[in-house]
């Protein structure tokens, strides 16, 4: 966290008078790899990808794990979320709006087709095209020519030559390159466009791994990956491949690591929170990750708008004993929140003005609640909506109890049978109280934690929060010319959120994982996924 990620961009700006993302591939230190079998296959947990493995249509973790292993984009992220050049030689701009991307020589897809500027431009155009209905199309909405409701070419993308293309953004974005490590920005070989559905079954990429031949993806069972001999980037595998076994239940996967059928597990089930450290001495991890959990507060309900709502939201927030809940219910596998982002993101702060509203304070909570009651007395039950198929019941009950015990009001969890059912009431603005909300970052930036969730009219801003001041600060942050300035704006924007509390930050989900004695060098990335290429097997 000490290394300033955005700084890479900023330093270049100062030094060259141009925004340059210089490669830092040379600077990455690789631990002296202990002897491992370079042919050994690492087995790990995953879930059946929701869609065919097309990078622009893979937004969930099951498919994401495969896509990031099979494809290499312009840049990739280190374990700490720093950028490293992969296919890119440089990504430069004079004005943060018009970018020139130059590619390294020698990159090839696993079918020997060279990776060219066209591989990127065609792939991005495919992902953005309206009628292709790609789930991640919105990642291209800041490129000139993008349309949300009709087919249109990304006119902002221009192939200059074999190894160069230019990108014109709709508005300046100093940290635009930061997002390019996300899998949606992967290149595609020409064969993909002949039959995208067939390609999704047997994707051909340029990443560290490739599918182990036809039928490597055994649906609902596993997917077998082997090292890609054509790959020569910064993520060169220290093992022979990956076998990603699909699980519906983390309990089953955990039992498999204990039973010696699985090498690496990246999610510890509730039932093992108390025992994983003794089950796997020295072979477990529990560190913060880029996952933010919160309670969203709709403004459209009686008692929850205006001055009264502001008081009540603060009172509720201060009546939740985050420390105790993360300690007891989660056994320390969550970290109490102090802002709206995550400790692994550069620019995270635990000293935002007004952050004391996130601390348990029984006296103040009661006082604020009483003040709100003076405006209009509150009767009824405070409920917390959640989808009961996601394992949320324990903490929702604990939060409800905490509120009940502090404020002396009725508070209960309100279970919806499925995520779809819960989403429906949120979309239709039919909530009767708070709702569970969560966000996992796609790429390591403050902006990604704020804009999609709280900007006026943003896609995932379901409770309809709207603040002119917040929107303005966000826009200023995006267009800022230095990282410090951008971070300052984003933090200021969060201070607006702390005052309005459209969402009550609860905690950051840690990445938790265990591994078998057979493997070494297991390090988990900022995105909660193990750095598979570094793992060695005895």
């Amino acid at each position, binding site marked *: 966290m000490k290394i300033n990620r955005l700084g890479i961009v900023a330093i270049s700006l100062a030094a060259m008078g141009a925004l340059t993302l210089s490669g830092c591939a040379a600077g990455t230190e690789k631990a002296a790899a202990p002897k491992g079998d370079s042919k050994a296959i690492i087995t790990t947990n995953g879930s059946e990808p929701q869609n065919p493995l097309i990078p622009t249509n893979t937004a969930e973790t099951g498919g994401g794990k495969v896509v990031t292993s099979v494809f290499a984009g312009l840049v990739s992220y280190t374990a700490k979320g720093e950028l490293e050049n992969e296919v890119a030689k440089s990504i430069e701009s004079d004005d943060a709006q018009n970018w020139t991307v130059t590619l390294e020589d020698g990159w090839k897809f696993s079918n020997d087709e060279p990776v060219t500027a066209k591989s990127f431009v065609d792939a991005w155009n495919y992902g953005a095209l309206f009628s292709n209905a790609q789930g991640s199309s919105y990642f291209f909405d800041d490129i000139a020519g993008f349309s949300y409701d009709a087919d249109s070419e990304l006119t902002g993308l221009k192939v200059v030559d074999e190894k160069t293309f230019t990108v014109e953004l709709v508005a300046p974005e100093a940290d635009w390159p930061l997002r390019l490590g996300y899998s949606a920005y992967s290149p595609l070989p020409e064969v993909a466009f002949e039959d995208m559905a067939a390609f999704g079954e047997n994707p051909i990429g340029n990443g560290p791994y490739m599918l182990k031949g036809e039928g490597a993806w055994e649906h609902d069972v596993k997917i077998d990956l082997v090292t890609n001999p054509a790959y020569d980037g910064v993520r060169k595998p220290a093992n022979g491949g990956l076998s990603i076994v699909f699980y519906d239940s983390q309990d089953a996967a955990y039992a498999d690591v204990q039973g010696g059928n699985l090498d690496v597990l990246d999610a510890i089930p*509730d*039932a*093992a*929170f*108390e*025992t994983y450290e003794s089950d796997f001495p020295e072979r477990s991890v529990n560190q913060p990750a880029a996952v933010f959990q919160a309670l969203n507060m709709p403004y459209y309900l009686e008692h929850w708008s205006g001055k009264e709502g502001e008081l009540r939201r603060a009172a509720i927030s201060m009546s939740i*004993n985050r420390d*105790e*809940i993360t300690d*007891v*219910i989660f056994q320390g596998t969550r970290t109490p929140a102090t802002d709206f982002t995550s400790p692994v993101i550069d620019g995270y702060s635990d000293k935002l003005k007004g952050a004391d509203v996130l601390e348990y304070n029984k006296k103040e909570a009661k006082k604020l609640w009483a003040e709100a009651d003076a405006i209009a007395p509150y009767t009824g039950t405070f409920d917390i909506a959640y*989808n*009961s*198929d*996601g394992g949320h*019941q*324990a903490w*929702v*009950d*604990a939060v*409800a*109890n*905490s509120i*009940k*015990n502090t404020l002396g009001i009725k508070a*209960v*969890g*309100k*279970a919806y*049978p*499925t995520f779809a*059912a819960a989403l429906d009431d949120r979309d239709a603005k039919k909530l009767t109280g708070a709702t569970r909300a969560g966000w996992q970052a796609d790429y390591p930036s403050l902006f990604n934690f704020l804009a999609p969730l709280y900007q006026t009219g943003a896609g995932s801003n379901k409770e309809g929060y709207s603040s002119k001041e917040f929107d303005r600060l966000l826009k200023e942050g995006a267009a800022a010319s230095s990282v410090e300035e951008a971070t300052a704006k984003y933090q200021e924007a969060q201070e607006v959120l702390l005052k309005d509390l459209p969402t009550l930050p609860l905690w950051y989900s840690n990445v938790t994982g265990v591994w078998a004695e057979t493997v070494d060098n297991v390090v988990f990335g900022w995105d909660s996924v193990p750095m598979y290429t570094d793992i060695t097997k005895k």
Partner: protein
Amino acid sequence: MPSNSPSGQTHYVAELEDTPVAAVDRLDESQKARSTWADAWDSMRRRPSFWISSVLILLIVVVALFPSLFAQTAPDACDLGNSNDGPAAGHPLGFTRQGCDVYSRIVFGTQASITVGLLATMLVTLFGVIIGALAGFYGGLLDALVSRIGDIFFAVPTVLGAIVLMSVLPVRTPVTIAVVLSIFAWPQIARIMRGAVLSARNSDYVTASIALGVSNSKILLRHVIPNSLAPVIVIATVSLGTFIVAEATLSFLGIGLGSDVMSWGNDIGQAQTSIRTSPQVLLYPAAALSITVLSFLMLGDVLRDALDPAARARR
């Protein structure tokens, strides 16, 4: 026919009794003929296990109706500070993961669990017995129709039915859970009943009744149904327990009772996460459930014996 019995006797002749046959066989015509049901009652009340199970069930029902008589601690007064703790003063069975009193939750959970178990069992048995008896007794088109309707209902996964119905119904209560469970479980009892009726329908006593000109409905009610109930009673009493657990499974899958409703099922379901470290959280509600099921199994056994003339005759 047995030519050589162990004692070596080849013929056996009963000794003459003093009472003349005519006296034994004389009917007491002054009294009304006793029904199977009345006979059953007579037989039942003479058995100790009938009284033991009845007292237990009565106790369970009283706890269900008036939980506050049995527990002073509020079941929803939970303090995370006590999470998964062992017994303490005033908290004889310790605490749940949420820091609630286990004993008090069992007492207050009785109502919901017994409602689910009893109501579902009664609905399923009533419906299953009527439909199964009609199908087995009359056969033909009626049998085909109701049996195939049963097939359709049984084919619908309970989970699907539960999600849909739970979403349509505005609230999730023990009653709705019981109704939902019954809708998809009655074909089981109906099939069992139908099979038993098929056997009983062709018994000698039914043939005799038909020969005597007794009406169909009378034969069905007085002879066929009582003589076919034995397997149904077994299934029903076991089902009572499985319905209560099914409520736990529905909660486990996220479509059961809300967490503000106390129920054994809910607590058993939530105990899954603590099972390795604090088994008491699972043990006590499961024990309460076991005792309930045991009481009903015992009662079912007695009732079954009572309805079986052969078994009754031996006593």
